[in-house]
């Protein structure tokens, strides 16, 4: 998946390089200033047409705007910093973000923890529950110990 926050930062950087305000960029693309603001903070995603128009306007490839081929940098102390949270989680689950389970689990929200536990339970992570044993609550332990069995 794409890191929409990194893309938002890229759009903001390209806009500033061209000395354009959010309002001026919005006028060029026939969208609202709010739309541009939302893209830049990953509150919403530009359409495919918007990306192609930005590419033409900034004279860069759409690959550059979408940060394709760029290696994301993670702050070990705050893995989610400057990235869309769903992107970081997906990167960990697919193995492109290589950090110990404990590090990401410790920084994850409740829902993200459930996603990690589900992946752990289904054997999709090369990690052991013992790595996060002391971080688990009663319900999380119970979830990990449950097995779906046929009656």
């Amino acid at each position, binding site marked *: *998946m*794409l890191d*929409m926050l990194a893309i938002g930062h890229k759009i903001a950087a390209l806009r500033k390089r061209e000395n354009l305000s959010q309002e001026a960029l919005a006028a060029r693309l026939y969208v609202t200033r709010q739309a541009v603001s939302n893209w830049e903070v990953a509150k919403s*995603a530009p*359409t*495919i*047409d918007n*990306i*192609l128009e930005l590419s033409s306007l900034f004279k860069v490839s*759409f*690959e550059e705007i*979408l940060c*394709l*081929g760029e290696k994301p940098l993670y702050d070990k102390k705050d893995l989610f910093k400057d990235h869309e949270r769903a992107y970081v989680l997906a990167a960990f689950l697919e193995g492109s973000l290589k950090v110990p389970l404990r590090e990401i689990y410790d920084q994850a929200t409740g829902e993200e923890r459930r996603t990690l536990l589900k992946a752990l339970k289904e054997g999709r992570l090369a990690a052991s529950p013992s790595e996060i044993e002391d971080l688990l609550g009663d319900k999380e332990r119970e979830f990990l110990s449950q097995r*779906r069995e*046929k*009656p």
Partner: protein
Amino acid sequence: MNLNAKKMLPFLDDDELHAIVLQMKDAPDGVYEGVSPRDIAPFAEEEDLDLLLAALAEKGVFATDLYPFASSEAIGKAAQAALSAQAFEAFRKALPFLDEDDADAAILAVLKDHDEIFASPDLKIGSLLPFLSETATTALFFSLVDAKPEEAKAMLPHLEEEDFHRLVEEAEEGKHPAFDWDAAYPFLDEEDVKRLFYAALRQKK
């Protein structure tokens, strides 16, 4: 059977309960001498309740009160019958009691022969998703992508990488024109994003 049949239920043995179940399954609404499926559910054996659930489902009577007491397999068959009959509430209520395999079997069987049922505006796809396997989710998504594009869009976070590859391949072939590709591209891997954008560029020329 006297009028206090309902009150007698806790005191009947398995054979007596079985005899009542046989009468209930032949009754048009599943009620015999004032005893409903809900009344007998806590007392009868699972095998009998499975029998009753199936017999009533065949008649289009969906005894949802039996779900907590019947086997997953029997509930799955009743759920399939409910879905085929577009009794969506009875179908939805079955899902939490089904094993993933039985939920899949019910959904996939109906998808195979009557995929138009899933396009009904009365069936809320989002409420099914937590109970479906990846296989059923994929099958459901591709059956809805044209018929119910808005619901298909909401399924995007539940799809696997292979599903996105297939989706992009189909986009390149010009399929699914009504689908919201703007909502899909953030979920794609880099290679698929490129293919989708190049397809969009080709269409613009």
